[in-house]
């Protein structure tokens, strides 16, 4: 029983980390068809912003989190203002932005390297102690991450589904010219989405670094996992990304326990390949019933 509990708790924690990695990427890619290769760097930036606010400026823990959110939001806006708005009307936007955002990622990573050095740090934003579920110890920080990631995902999905801004974002993604004819400023929508995406990435970076370590390259692995989750869930399906994150993590942890740690990630990739052959548009996307 304790083994089962351990697998479930480890799977939920890993799933929450995957979900956190995927939130911002899912929002930006799904709503703007923009694969933001700087997403991993934004995660890293959030982690370091919290570290600087708490350790170097002496701010309280949650002020550090708010500081990271502010930095993520501002850098998201800066990405829009400095790069995206000049490329928006280009027919090859979706391809060009991959290259441009990859360049931005390299710049951000090097700025962090210059400011903080390559030596890894411990994220100060971490809750102490924990509780026992049976014989299994569950740190409060892990619980905070599980609940926090689910809450962030649901809040993002709610905003996109139910608010005026969310409708404008979906409309712009589905028919940019049609959205303009409704009075939507496409430039404003892109700026909003990149700001929110940057903020979500920063929060994710703080939480992820709290149970791993803070290093300039910490964003690469979450970015890869986020990419897999977003594709599996279906582009723009934020709630689907939440389900996919937890299902894939539980699967990976189970394989690691039964066959060995080194088989976890290859088994995960095998599952992803099978899933994409079965449902190329994403496992959680409804099949399109287009009337002729």
């Amino acid at each position: 029983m304790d083994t089962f509990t351990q697998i479930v708790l480890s799977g939920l924690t890993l799933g929450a980390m995957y979900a956190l990695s995927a939130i911002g990427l899912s929002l930006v890619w799904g709503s703007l068809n923009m694969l933001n290769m700087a997403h991993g760097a934004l995660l890293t930036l959030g982690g370091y912003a919290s570290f600087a606010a708490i350790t170097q400026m002496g701010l309280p823990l949650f002020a550090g989190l708010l500081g990271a959110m502010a930095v993520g939001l501002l850098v998201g806006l800066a990405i829009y203002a400095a790069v995206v708005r000049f490329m928006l009307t280009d027919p090859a936007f979706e391809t060009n932005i991959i290259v441009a955002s990859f360049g931005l990622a390299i710049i951000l990573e090097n700025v962090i390297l210059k400011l903080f050095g390559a030596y890894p740090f411990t994220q100060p934003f971490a809750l102490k102690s924990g509780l026992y579920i049976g014989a299994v110890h569950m740190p409060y920080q892990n619980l905070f991450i599980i609940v926090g990631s689910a809450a962030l995902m649901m809040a993002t999905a709610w905003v996109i589904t139910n608010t005026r801004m969310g409708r404008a974002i979906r409309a712009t993604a589905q028919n940019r010219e049609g959205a303009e004819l409704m009075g939507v400023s496409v430039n404003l929508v892109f700026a909003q989405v990149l700001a929110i995406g940057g903020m979500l990435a920063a929060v994710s970076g703080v939480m992820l670094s709290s149970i791993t370590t803070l290093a300039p390259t910490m964003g690469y692995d979450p970015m890869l996992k986020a990419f897999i989750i977003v594709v599996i869930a279906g582009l723009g399906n934020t709630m689907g990304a939440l389900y996919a994150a937890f299902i894939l993590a539980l699967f990976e942890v189970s394989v690691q326990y039964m066959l060995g740690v080194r088989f976890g990630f290859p088994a995960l990739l095998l599952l992803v390949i099978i899933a994409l052959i079965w449902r190329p548009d994403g496992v959680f996307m409804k099949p399109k019933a287009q009337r002729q």
Partner: protein
Amino acid sequence: MPDPLLALEDVSAGYQGNQVLKGLSLAVPEGALVTIIGPNGHGKSTLLRCVSGLVRTTRGTIRLRDTPLHRLKPNEIVAAGVVHIPQGDMLFPDMTVRDNLLMGAYLPAAFANGRQRLEEIFVLLPVLAERRRQIASTLSGGERRMLAIGRGLMSVGRILLIDEPSLGLAPIAIDQIYAAIAGLKRSGRTILLVEENATRVLDLADMVYLLDNGQMVWQGAPRDLASRQELLATYLGG
């Protein structure tokens, strides 16, 4: 003649160096239904796309009263009061009928009364009420057209531009759509309507423009056009 609500003066426009509109002028008085008819592919839709800013003019001016529309972006033109119901509908295919309609009330002036307006649209176009939770891409052609018109009516624009409302539809759907347009005219809305099927619009229109090869070749009252058999035969095959 009082100042028109919408006035185009010497407008030229086109796509990638190919000139489609060649110095045309047009006036739409407030409260009138003005229709543009003419052969397929001669610039009728381009004219509406110029007014709503989707195609930039290369010469001439477009004014909504004192506002020069030709200098504005599409979203700014909508904010000025122009509502464009385009050919091909431009719906949001993965959104529900209700959400598509609510997008019509996106701007703050309309958003405040969006829920109330939604109920009014459901009364005016009952088929949309039945389909309110349905995804737009699963609607029939006639229902999609109704949705595009309903979405346009959700806004509080000063002029409605409607492009080919009967295109590709079954006769019963065309009847329903023209009944809705007639209702709009009775309520005093200003409408600029593009239509290839001249017989459908001559009973409704206050003024008719005949567009051929990017130029206005005739303008006048519908009854005058009905008596000009040579024009009908040359440009409209009838």
